[in-house]
């Protein structure tokens, strides 16, 4: 017998929206999240965010914990997975140097107190997240030397030109661009190497035949997002092209288990919110209310599809790693040891690639992109935990 009607894993936009809609309809809701504050990576506890305010008033209980295995299913009669996404990293020479972070990583670090005033920052990779990170860094006093977008200029302007279909997004984009006047934004270029002694000091940027150096104190790189499907896979939810497969009510293939947000398809905060709302309403038995949100969800899914095609990765980015470039950062496995392996499993057995403490979260996605194979199975615990925790909960 669960103490809660609904357990939600993840307190980002999807999880918060799900929890609000369910709790506001009388369900007893617990939300499990391992971050210091609710809001996920995008809001990271921002006090001004209305959804976080609403969440605090909703009656849902927030519990700081890491859901490591299938026992989370026992926490509520129904379970909503809203485990979000992490960044995709593609290995390139120098990417292991301190001072090289993710693009979302830089945002997360700034929001958790990193002072960037006066620091020279290069932001590289792909997608609107680059602009959001540049805007945040600049607002905190960083000198943003360059925003290097890998997608060719034509694709970027085509995407921006289609934003009228989503007026809210067009306005957001315009506001963002106003904060970036004077910052150099170059499309069709990428960072091919990070250099420095003990930390990043400069990067080599390339566009076609031309390459140049940019000095920097921090390099933020991000090539898109990878869904966090580990827990869903452990629970037996069917995946489709790497994402959790969901139906009209955001239900997964496992009865009583729902999924919402980036883990069902990368699409940003609005798609996550509306999917979360639908999941929360459906799990609380309010299907009729959920159904009214279907058209909004469809609209944000179309936006997601545009985003994916506009910022699809150029093949050259998957060939930046050299023979001696580290691919698995936990076990220090270079590309030369991985080339020619038939599968993720063979690589693990022969090289320890993917067997370190991130459990293949970084190199699994990277090898899928650059070598055509990648992490294919999940074993509990889905996240490193203390033996004490496993013993305590097994015996309880």
């Amino acid at each position, binding site marked *: 017998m669960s103490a809660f009607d609904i357990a939600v894993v993840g307190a980002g936009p999807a999880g918060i929206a799900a929890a609000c809609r369910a709790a506001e309809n009388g369900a007893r809701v617990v939300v499990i999240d391992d971050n210091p504050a609710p809001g996920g990576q995008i809001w990271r506890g921002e006090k001004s965010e209305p959804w976080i305010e609403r969440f605090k008033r909703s009656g849902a209980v927030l519990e700081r914990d890491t859901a490591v295995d299938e026992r989370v299913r026992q926490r509520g009669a129904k379970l909503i997975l809203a485990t979000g996404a992490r960044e995709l*990293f593609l290995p390139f020479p120098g990417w292991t140097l301190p001072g090289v*972070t993710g693009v979302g990583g830089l945002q997360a670090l700034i929001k*958790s107190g*990193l002072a960037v005033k006066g620091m020279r920052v290069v932001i590289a990779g792909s997608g609107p997240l680059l602009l959001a990170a540049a805007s945040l860094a600049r607002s905190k006093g960083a000198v943003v030397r360059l925003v290097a977008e890998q997608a060719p200029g034509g694709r970027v302007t085509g995407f921006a030109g289609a934003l009228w279909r989503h007026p809210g997004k067009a306005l957001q984009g315009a506001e963002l661009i106003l904060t970036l006047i004077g910052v150099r934004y170059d499309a069709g270029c990428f960072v091919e190497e990070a250099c420095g002694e003990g930390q990043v000091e400069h990067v080599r940027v390339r566009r076609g035949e031309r390459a140049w150096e940019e000095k920097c104190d921090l390099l933020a790189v991000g090539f898109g997002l990878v869904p966090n499907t580990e827990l869903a896979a452990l629970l037996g939810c069917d995946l489709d092209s790497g994402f959790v497969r969901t139906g009209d009510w955001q239900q997964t293939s496992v009865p009583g288990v729902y999924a919402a947000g980036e883990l069902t398809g990368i699409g940003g905060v609005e798609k996550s919110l509306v999917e979360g709302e639908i999941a929360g309403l459906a799990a609380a038995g309010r299907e009729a209310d959920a159904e009214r949100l279907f058209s909004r969800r469809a609209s944000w899914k179309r936006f997601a599809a545009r985003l994916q095609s506009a910022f699809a990765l150029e093949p050259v980015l998957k060939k930046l790693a050299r023979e001696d470039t580290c691919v698995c950062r936990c076990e220090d496995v270079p590309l030369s040891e991985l080339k020619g392996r038939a599968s993720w499993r063979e690589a693990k057995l022969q090289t320890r690639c993917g067997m370190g403490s991130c459990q293949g979260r970084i190199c699994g996605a990277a090898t899928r992109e650059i070598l055509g194979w990648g992490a294919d199975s999940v074993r509990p615990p889905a996240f490193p935990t203390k033996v004490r925790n496993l013993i305590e909960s097994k015996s309880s």
Partner: protein
Amino acid sequence: MPERIRIIVDGRELHVDRGVTVAAAMMNAGIRAFRQSVSGEARGPLCGMGVCMECRVTINREPHCRSCQTLCEDGMEVQTR
């Protein structure tokens, strides 16, 4: 103004605002090498959101703590090796 608290990193005293993570506090103090990789390379925070484990340090004698997911607490002792 946020309350100022004190943490100790490798014997060095840092004064930080309450609400800041250990990773941010260390980077603000100029620390870039958070751990040594298995082949001895210096590594620091990459993902910033608790996934990559590159920022792990020993906090109050507990090894392998993710500094990016841990808020500073007054008197906290941090070791990078």
